[in-house]
């Protein structure tokens, strides 16, 4: 029988490297931008304009108009193909009363704006802070409820608590890897966190138990069936028996997510990509981290038990 659990040290090492890399990217992002992930206006407050002009326009002209409105620190960037003349401008928040005249001035001094393609978004800084706090709370509460649910669900299995804790370990793994991925994309492609990023993280947390549950379920079923086998073998057997299903499910989820990333709208690409990374991490961490951890715990506890018995 192929033994996954036996080689657990290698998987633990791989994950440790992965997590270290994720944290390193977040540190790099903090050094570069002052934030572990580039925070979007949903969290910091501010305004973003996406302007599509009907001709080639000068970046400095756009900047000059914003400066006249007291928005000297506006970040002006081209977006999309050059022939589309699309520009994105990020500034501190512009009030509703200013938008109309700002756009009129832009048309007068820079070029005609395609109003049908015009997009802008403004969030007050105060709300941004509130959203950030609520987001942190949502992540914490979601994790706690899911873990409590796992514990409850496995309450009849010996050491149900361990199943809960091992699930947390896998969940943390997935969240850190997803954060690291987003931070990396922030550095490489300028991705900024928004409400959808939070949605992706919460979804990853929710799906963090999907594969763990199936393996744990099988362990629960296999323990009474194979009473003579050591725990490690029962666990390994359970992983092998369920791995087909985990991979098949994962493949299907990947198919649809890749389809959305390749063919869907640009605005949800970061959202779905983060979810995809989180889900792949989830399947991996369930089989190679969370479940083997259960074995480690069992062994440590057994050794202690023996030590106590000998003392």
């Amino acid at each position, binding site marked *: 029988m192929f033994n996954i659990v036996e080689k657990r040290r290698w998987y633990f090492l791989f994950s440790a490297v992965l997590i270290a890399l994720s944290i390193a990217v977040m540190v790099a992002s903090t050094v570069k931008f002052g934030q572990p992930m580039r925070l979007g206006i949903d969290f910091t407050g501010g305004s973003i304009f996406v302007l599509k002009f009907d001709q080639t326009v000068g970046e400095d002209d756009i900047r000059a108009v914003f400066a006249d409105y007291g928005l000297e620190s506006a970040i002006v960037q081209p977006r999309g193909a050059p022939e589309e003349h699309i520009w994105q401008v990020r500034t501190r928040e512009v009030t509703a009363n200013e938008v109309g005249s700002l756009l009129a001035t832009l048309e007068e001094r820079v070029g005609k704006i395609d*109003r*049908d393609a015009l*997009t802008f978004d403004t969030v007050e800084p105060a709300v941004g802070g509130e959203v950030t706090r609520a987001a942190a709370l*949502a992540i914490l509460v979601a994790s706690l409820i899911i873990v409590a649910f796992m514990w409850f669900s496995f309450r009849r299995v010996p050491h149900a608590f361990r199943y809960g804790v091992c699930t947390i370990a896998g969940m943390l793994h997935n969240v850190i890897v997803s954060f690291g991925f987003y931070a990396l994309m922030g550095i490489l492609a300028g991705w900024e966190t928004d409400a959808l990023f939070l*949605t992706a993280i919460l979804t990853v947390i929710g*799906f963090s138990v*999907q594969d763990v549950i199936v393996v744990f379920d099988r362990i629960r*079923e296999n323990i009474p069936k194979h009473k003579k086998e050591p725990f490690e073998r029962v666990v390994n057997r359970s992983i092998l028996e369920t791995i087909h299903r985990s991979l098949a499910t994962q493949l299907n989820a990947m198919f649809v997510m890749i389809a959305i990333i390749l063919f869907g709208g640009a605005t*949800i690409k970061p959202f*779905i990509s983060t979810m995809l990374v989180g889900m792949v991490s989830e399947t991996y961490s369930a089989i190679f981290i969370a479940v083997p951890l259960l074995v480690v715990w069992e062994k440590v506890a057994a050794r202690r038990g023996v030590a106590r018995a000998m003392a």
Partner: protein
Amino acid sequence: MKKSETWQLAVIIIIALAALYVDLNIEHPDWVKNLVFWQPAAQRDIALHRGLDLQGGLQVLLAADVHEGQKLEAVSMETARRIVENRVNSLGLAEPVVQAQGERRIIVELPGIENPEQAVETIKGTALLEFVDAGNISLPPGTVVTTTLGGPQVTPPGTEMPPTAESPITATQPTPPPSPGRMTYETIFTGAALKNVGLDRTQQGEYIIPFELNPDAAEIFSDYTASHVGQYLCIVLDKEVISCPVVKDHIPGGQASISGKFTFDDARQLAIQLRYGALPVPLRVESFNRIGATLGAESVQKSIRAGAIGLVIVLLFMLIYYRLPGSVADVALIIYVLINFALYKLAPITLTLPGIAGFILSAGMAVDANILIFERMKEELRRGRGLMTAIEIGFSRAWPSIRDAQISTLIICAILFLFGTNFGASIVKGFAITLAIGTVVNVFTAVFATRAFVRQIAASAGQWVSEHQWLLGV
């Protein structure tokens, strides 16, 4: 085959056909529309509603501008919401949305509006409270009327704002010619004339709303009531009738009260409306967001394409990998898609871009339950069990895992929904709703429907299937 299983099959087929019928992009007959009794009677419809990010428009999030700890009464927020709704309706847009979000926020969605300045002024402008002479007819609350101070404002984008209550107007104002086919009601006095508005209870236990008028209006009121006993004096807020009390007696001195069969909440709401006319809670614009119409249309197209491609790949995968049971799962998945869309139309659920993503994702995950069941079936078959036994074990053993996975998804959906609601983040909400609906529908199609189909096949062609094991992918 057992009788109960025939029934199950019949139920599944009827539901699938009904869903297909609802999904069809046709004008459904009125009697069908009337079946969706949970929708407000006036606007029952079976249609897909596109969110702002798919049709383009302006979204404004308003928050009560009060101190952090200050308590907000639900009634005043609801009144504020209604006033905002009236004003938004006056813009004459197709399908505007005005919804309370959490305890202290109101979200306003204005499809097709571009200029946030105009929208904000419309929303925050002062409401106009009028007392109009309705003659002998009691106008039901909600009636939109034209008064001597103007009619329902259908302000095309970019033109002037509705009149405000600040203009000092008395009943002596000349009456403009009434528009054809519509009655113009005479405004006796406006909310500006109200000095005090209270809330009281009579000895009989009825709630009444005593009020006091300033001297000028008191005189007008006295003259009016002297000659109009038994007639109706309707209270109109932003051209919408909110109450229509009858004049019982001549009232000199400017002190009177409105009575009626009010509940406490009704009376209080009316008192708030009389007292403030304008918004009972000061509102602040917290965020606004505008999406271009062409971007929305592009998003719809791309989402449909992405969804179709993703779905076809999943269907093919299931068919190739699981063969006969896979084809059953495919049928279940198609029913799943039909039911989901039917529910979006019936509920109705407003579809947003993340909402569609949530749906596509849920379709990809929907086959998980089938995969769990089929893998278990294959295992049991390899152990040499008979087809029927393998099927039953497959379903019963896979169930706890399916159930636990669904519950954890629903927990996350609930948290996302709460978060989205509190901050007016309708995109987050949209994702949570479609994912949650998908999760529930999934139990029906992937477990209940698939089981009925598989049992049916096993019962009618079990022998043949057992002889062709490749069909089962073992």
